[in-house]
């Protein structure tokens, strides 16, 4: 229900933008998102920018798993 992919805004037009998904560029609509500037990172869903997105922080997967296990086993 939710396939949206991040892309960088390369250039702007009236109601649309050219974005770069990383070696793949496309014209997408800004019809449902305000305040988009060149250089912004947006989430693209079905040809529309739906929101801005920040950088994903790298997490230590093993640590997260361990925290999860600890949380499960924690006595109330």
């Amino acid at each position, binding site marked *: 229900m*939710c396939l949206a992919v991040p892309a960088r805004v390369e250039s702007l037009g009236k109601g649309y933008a050219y974005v770069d998904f990383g070696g793949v560029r496309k014209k997408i609509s800004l*019809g449902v*998102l305000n305040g988009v500037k060149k250089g912004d990172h947006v989430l693209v869903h079905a040809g529309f920018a*739906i929101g801005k997105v920040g*950088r*994903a922080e790298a997490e230590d*997967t093993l640590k997260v798993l361990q925290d999860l296990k600890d949380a499960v*086993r924690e006595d*109330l």
Partner: protein
Amino acid sequence: MKKIRLMEVCGTHTMAIARSGLKRLLPDEIELISGPGCPVCVTPQEAIDRGMKLAGISGVIMTTFGDMIRVPGSGGSLDDIKKDGADIRVVYSCLDALDIAERNPSRKVVFMGVGFETTSPTAAATVLEAKRRKVDNFFILSNFKVIFPALEAIARSKKARVDGFICPGHVSVITGSVPYERFAEKHKKPCVITGFGDDDILDGIRRLVVLVRSGSSSVEIGYDRAVKKRGNIRARHILESVFRTVDSEWRGLGKIKKSGLKLKNEYASFDGEKEFKVKVPRSLLPEGCACGEIIQGILSPRECRLFGKGCTPRKPVGPCMVSSEGTCAAYYKYGRRK
């Protein structure tokens, strides 16, 4: 030790979890169950039948997202009639359908709209654009739905037994976290709005487990690099100006109040249902199909007696098997052999 039952509301989460094999890494106490957030899975058979009838009308170009093309109606799928010559085109965006309409003024172009709050605003924006461009041969067949009423139905159900909700990250980009706060408070169940990377999902589950174990019914935004509390106000505004909320039928869940979207009267000229008055047979859930129980997390795919036997991706009985996000499809593809 009682299991902690967490619902993956969103079909995209179900698939991401299955594809990364995450379940095997989780402690046994955590049970992940599927939810109703697969728009293809909950689209009633009538809607497919209507789409197929329209596609069969001479001069009509039926446009749809790839997800819908193999979903079975009462007599085959869009893909089947495409093979027989119906003009059915897969599009990436609703705007592509509008472009097709502009390029083919003598044809009637229908867009089969399926999706939740992530997608419906894009269709609404397209209708506004169609009006602006004065295109009069573009129509929408709206099967758009709103996820919250379905969550309410599940939270109220005694059979579902959900301790916490893994909430859809991209729907939430649009809705923000406020609707979940009302829901969580009312039903006393915690919600974590979760992204779709492996780390996002693990982090979301971790947060949710902490909330469940502490008896909290808060809402947390795990996916905070994309989701804001107020969401995307403009998208919601456009949605509300083009669509109105109606009672709608969810395959396997029955009729849910104010859970579907239809075009407002002022946009009636874009309404596919009004333009083409076709009759379709009443939906019947095929004998033995357990999709309804599966999307509520009551049964797991393996507990459906048709799973892998009468119902496979190649010959699907229910939409949970043929949808690219369907729970049964995920189980069949990634986990059927031990």
